[in-house]
């Protein structure tokens, strides 16, 4: 009896040992997802008072009226606009730099690389403060344009990194083959380089969009009285948090997961069809 029990104990200790990393990993995953669960649950809350931090009772009021709070949906649409323009700007400028870095030789390559790398190695608050110093010195009116300028600036480096990785893994002979087959520089770029680099450009653009849309620190410094969605959330943390921000947060999470799942499903179906 005793030996059997100790053997049983031994096997369960062994099981634990073998799966320790899985257990620890899942714990971390839980840690990462817990706030999203809370955000979702509290989007159905009916809080007393101005803050939505304590559970009171179930209500779908906020879901039926997501724009029911003054300025919320306005700030959301402003953030979307800024994110779209910033994505466009940063992607075009960043992709151009990435192509130049990978495909051409030129002087001052090291300096260019450092200039790309530094914004990523700089605390946001430093960039935010110095950019504000510039705008104040120049007497620039803070608002939409200063936010957009700032966003393109800090998204740029990330786009360069993403596109560079893709272009670097691309065989330069493909472009040579295109030129050899009567495609001029423009045709080569449009017919060969761009389609092959597209996944990298898309990844860079997606990253830029996410960074811009969610940026708070740099925007906080350079927005003046303009209110983006993160600025709205920040302000509401001081004045009172409407349930609607949880609704928006939950909706964004769900839409993002669904989009990713859908694209994966399409991708795998395409793969299966081809095979």
């Amino acid at each position, binding site marked *: 009896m005793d030996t059997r029990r100790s053997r049983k104990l031994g096997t369960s200790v062994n099981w634990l040992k073998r799966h320790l990393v899985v257990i620890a990993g899942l714990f971390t995953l839980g840690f990462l997802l817990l706030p999203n669960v809370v955000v979702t649950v509290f989007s159905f809350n009916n809080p007393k008072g101005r803050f939505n931090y304590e559970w009171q009772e179930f209500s779908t009021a906020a879901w039926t009226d997501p724009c029911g709070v003054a300025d919320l949906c306005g700030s959301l649409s402003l953030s979307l606009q800024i994110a779209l323009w910033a994505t466009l700007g940063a992607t075009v400028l960043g992709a151009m730099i990435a192509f130049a870095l990978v495909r051409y030789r030129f002087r001052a390559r090291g300096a260019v690389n450092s200039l790309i790398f530094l914004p990523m190695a700089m605390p946001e608050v430093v960039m935010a403060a110095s950019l504000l110093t510039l705008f104040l010195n120049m007497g620039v009116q803070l608002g939409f344009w200063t936010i957009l300028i700032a966003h393109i600036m800090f998204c740029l480096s990330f786009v360069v990194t993403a596109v560079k990785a893709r272009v670097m893994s691309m*065989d330069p*002979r*493909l472009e*040579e*083959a*295109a*030129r*050899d*087959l*009567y*495609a*001029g520089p423009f*045709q*080569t770029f449009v*017919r*060969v380089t761009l*389609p*092959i680099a597209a996944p990298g450009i898309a990844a860079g653009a997606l990253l830029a969009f996410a960074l811009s849309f969610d940026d708070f620190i740099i925007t906080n410094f350079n927005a003046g009285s303009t209110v983006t969605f993160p600025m709205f959330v920040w302000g509401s943390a001081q004045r009172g948090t409407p349930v609607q921000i949880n609704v928006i947060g939950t909706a964004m999470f769900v839409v993002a997961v669904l989009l990713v799942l859908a694209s994966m499903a399409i991708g795998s179906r395409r793969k299966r069809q*081809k095979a």
Partner: protein
Amino acid sequence: MTTKDSSGDVRLSGISKTYGSFTAVHPLDLTVPQGSFFALLGASGCGKTTTLRMIAGLEEPTSGTVFLGDQDVTALPPYKRPVNTVFQSYALFPHLDIFENVAFGLRRRGVKSVKKQVEEMLDLVQLGEQARKKPHQLSGGQQQRVAVARALINHPKVLLLDEPLGALDLKLRRQMQLELKRIQTEVGITFVHVTHDQEEAMTMADTVAVMNAGRVEQLGAPDELYENPRTTFVANFLGTSNLIEAEVDTKAGDDIVLKAGGGKLTLPSERCSASTATGGKVLVGVRPEKISLVHADDAGEIPDGRNRITGTIADASFIGVSTQYVIDSPICPELAVYVQNVERDGRLTPGADVVLHWSPAHTFGLDAAQDIDAGTEEEAA
């Protein structure tokens, strides 16, 4: 038809390429006649690919001129040259299917109805069924044929092939060599083929240029290069050569008599690329398969007039069709001898004393000022 069409001639005149202080190709003059199958052979880094890329327009020559027929194309970008390339590892466009890969050149030149041409071309390379597949779904050999089709459909004046068979396994490579040769004969286009594989160059090409360190060492028909190499590099890079240091003794008619160790060797003077002043040093070369081997006891049976060397067998390896011997001789260590396995002499084992003999007509003479081992390393690689 006209008597002699020279519009497909490739003429390089004084062409060179330097990168900073590194010279990839020294000033080079080369003429590839219309319709010939020309191979640039050499180890990696010898400048053969750079030369090819200058013909394609992918590389700007530092000096010199490229002519296609009578036209100076040096200033033309690749997309304006009537030249197409089969790239190393093919460079098929991964985002386009086979049909679109082959149609690429036609479409860029504004050809409207490409369907018939592309289908014919795919049939020629036996890939009609695969038209709608993506390149990564094809095998190596199939991809190679797509690359050839993609280039040939444009009816270039010259087709450039950059190590086109390098990625294939040995068996497929042999098969594709014959296939490419067949296509070349059929379409009659000038082929310029870059390879590091000497067997490949010799099987396929009418003319081979052996390149080393940015220079053409020797140019000629494959058998001419093999039988009568003019530099140690060519002698060692194409197959194997035994090179023996000797000194010019006398000249007898068309022959030169040389002293090597205690013995004498005879060499036809037209087969000697070195100066033949009496007392001058010459490297005497002979291919391993030209040498006959007899046991020292039978030395008397060797006919007169043959070059002979004595030695002992250091090593013998049986490789089926032949046996390869390594012979140590007082005048030259490690001579290679290949003997066909017709009737094997049981006495020819390591340690046995032997006499090597061969016809003077199979002897060649090289300038002794060269590195005697040039080209041996590369050959092994």
